[in-house]
């Protein structure tokens, strides 16, 4: 992908020398799991749960139903890299290289302008975590999991691992064994966090694996928008990112979770994201995948309470060497629940996208409404797109719909735009941006501009 790779290199792919305060030996072992527990000074129930998860990971076969994962080199991957002693609340207290990294990525600036709180993860740990004072005063909690274990053990223990247990899948097991970094968020009843909270994930080291863990609990009637972004330098060897996100949306709450996944093209991105939506709660996953070598990610909402609503918007842009297997899952366990899954994918320059969707309606979940729509755009003959929707409906009084389109950019469309002075790359980028419009208008302005620029970088072959 020549041009666009260079653009990525300049804007996101820079790297600084690694100066971790601790780094584990490469490979997977009980010893390293224990080492992590020890460094973090964890309670026994956590270190035990890690070991149980490791055991499960070892026993569980690699999933073979999706993209090829056989080349992941676990033996030569570093599973824990601690960059600093502790997370700070002041950017100036960070080591210069780390501070410079986040400066270049524009995180402190975004924080000043429009964010309610920021967590910044570098390799295996959060190095910065801060929330605006007025929110802290209202009881909003936004800390890394290590702090949460110590300061808020009751609420953490109650929910941790309940939405995504380590037995869920092989990579959830791996995360549960090695998790480090991420966020714990608690929004008290009826508190509305007006500006987004954001976590940014950066993998600086080569050949590493990042396993952040995010747990969001939105108490009754509260509202929050959480955003995450990620990038990494370009290395010739592959890295692994296997995050787990658990959301508990208690009755009447509204949680929106926006992801802008922009890993470099040497990262395996295998993420489990799931939410419980209780009575009348709304959960929205807004999930964009532009980067990574292989992504497998199907954000899920389990509607456990009457009247709960799920909105999943998943977009993917796959270029040369990328295989983005994404989608969404809506599980209706209660009556009068509603779900909408919208997928938009673009493949170009030999890239591959695949939509995988699941809509499940349990017996007794009456008057369910669900609609799935997936649109794919294929920019050339080298690229691919697939659709694998799955329906499992065990109730009669439901309305479940599915529609799918696959399109190519027509010669006439390109001619129309080029006749107005746009060159072919600009015209293509414009059509692709228009195709993603449904997604872009869900983003805060600053991110919308950024997203459109990313598309231009990727699609424009300069």
């Amino acid at each position: 992908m020549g041009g666009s790779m260079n653009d990525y290199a300049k804007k996101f792919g820079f790297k600084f020398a690694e100066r971790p305060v601790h780094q584990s030996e490469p490979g997977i072992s009980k010893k390293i799991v224990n080492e992590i527990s020890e460094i973090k000074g964890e309670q026994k129930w956590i270190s035990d749960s890690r070991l149980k998860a490791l055991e499960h990971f070892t026993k569980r076969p690699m999933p073979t139903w999706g993209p090829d994962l056989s080349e992941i080199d676990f033996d030569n991957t570093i599973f824990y890299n601690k960059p600093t002693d502790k997370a700070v609340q002041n950017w100036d207290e960070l080591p210069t290289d780390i501070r410079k990294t986040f400066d270049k990525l524009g995180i402190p600036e975004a924080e000043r302008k429009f964010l309610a709180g920021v967590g910044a993860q570098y390799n295996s740990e959060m190095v910065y975590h801060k929330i605006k004072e007025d929110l802290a005063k209202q009881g909003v909690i936004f800390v890394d999991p290590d702090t949460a274990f110590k300061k808020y053990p009751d609420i953490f223990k109650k929910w941790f691992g309940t939405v995504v247990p380590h037995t869920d899948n092989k990579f959830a097991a791996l995360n549960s064994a090695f998790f480090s970094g991420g966020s714990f968020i608690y929004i008290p009843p009826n508190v509305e966090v007006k500006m987004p909270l954001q976590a940014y994930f950066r993998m600086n080291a080569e050949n590493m694996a990042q396993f952040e863990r995010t747990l969001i609990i939105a108490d009754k009637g509260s509202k929050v928008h959480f955003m995450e972004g990620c990038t990494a330098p370009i290395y010739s060897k592959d890295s692994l990112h296997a995050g787990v996100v658990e959301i508990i949306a208690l009755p009447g709450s509204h949680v929106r979770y926006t992801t802008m996944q922009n890993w470099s093209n040497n990262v395996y991105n295998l993420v489990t994201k799931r939410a419980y939506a209780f009575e009348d709660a709304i959960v929205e996953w807004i999930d964009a995948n532009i980067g990574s070598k292989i992504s497998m990610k199907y954000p899920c909402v389990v509607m456990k309470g009457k009247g709960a609503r799920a909105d999943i918007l998943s977009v993917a842009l796959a270029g040369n060497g990328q295989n983005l297997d994404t989608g969404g899952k809506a599980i209706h366990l209660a009556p009068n629940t509603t779900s909408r899954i919208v997928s938009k994918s673009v493949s170009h320059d030999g890239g591959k996208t695949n939509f995988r969707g699941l809509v499940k309606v349990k017996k007794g979940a009456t008057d369910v409404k669900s609609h799935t729509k997936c649109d794919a755009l294929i920019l050339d003959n080298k690229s691919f797109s697939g659709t694998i929707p799955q329906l499992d409906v065990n109730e009669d009084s439901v309305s479940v719909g599915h529609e799918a389109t696959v399109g190519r950019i027509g010669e006439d469309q390109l001619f129309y735009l080029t006749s107005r002075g746009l060159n072919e790359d600009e015209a293509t980028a414009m059509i692709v941006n228009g195709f993603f419009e449904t997604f872009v208008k869900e983003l805060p302005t600053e991110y919308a501009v950024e997203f459109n620029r990313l598309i231009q970088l990727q699609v424009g072959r300069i």
Partner: protein
Amino acid sequence: MKLEIKNLHVAVDGKKVVKGVNLAVSEGEVHAIMGPNGAGKSSLSYAIMGHPKYKITKGKIIFDGHDITEFSPDKRAKLGLFLGFQHPLEISGVSVNNFLRTAYRSLKSDSMSILELREFVSKKMSQLKMDKSFAGRGLNEGFSGGEKKLAEILQLVVLQPKIAILDEPDSGTDVDTLKLIAQNIKSVNKKNNTGILLVTHHNRILKYLKPDFVHVLVDGKIAKTGGPELADKLESKGYGWVEA
């Protein structure tokens, strides 16, 4: 400033559709091309603008002294050539405003700010009696036939090219829309000195525009050239009397 078509032959999918057209349109002039269905009028328009499907097998297109026969459409546009489409394409999710801004920026080097440009576009829109909300709609997305025609003319008056080929800007429009379209073509012709090459089936738009020349295209060739009186004659007698 002149657009010169010299002995132009065009084939599409191997089929000859334009068979030796000679034509010269200077800035400020208004030319009309009429002719029966399938005579090659749209093919000629596409070929002049550089549609990749319309292959020029012989002849040349000269624009402002440059041989643009091999130029890409965007290069032709940058020199000041414009094509108003008979069937404009839908570009889903791209607003009219965003599109006009992008096109304007790629064609013009002036330093109009985003706000000035928006103001400029909005003035042109009121000139075409278009509702303000139009600017926020997806380009040609769900537009009625008349709205599509107006949107093409909006692009013409915003981009102010040196020479504009307008492929049936009047077809399928009601009387009021037709009048608006004609007025705006005339204004860009008079105020900006834009040369117009108008493809039409109807004499009505020509009543407003008063072309300097009327050409009749029959079977890929210009069979006759005259003044506005030629259009009158075609209206009453049809194309049958014109020899190909």
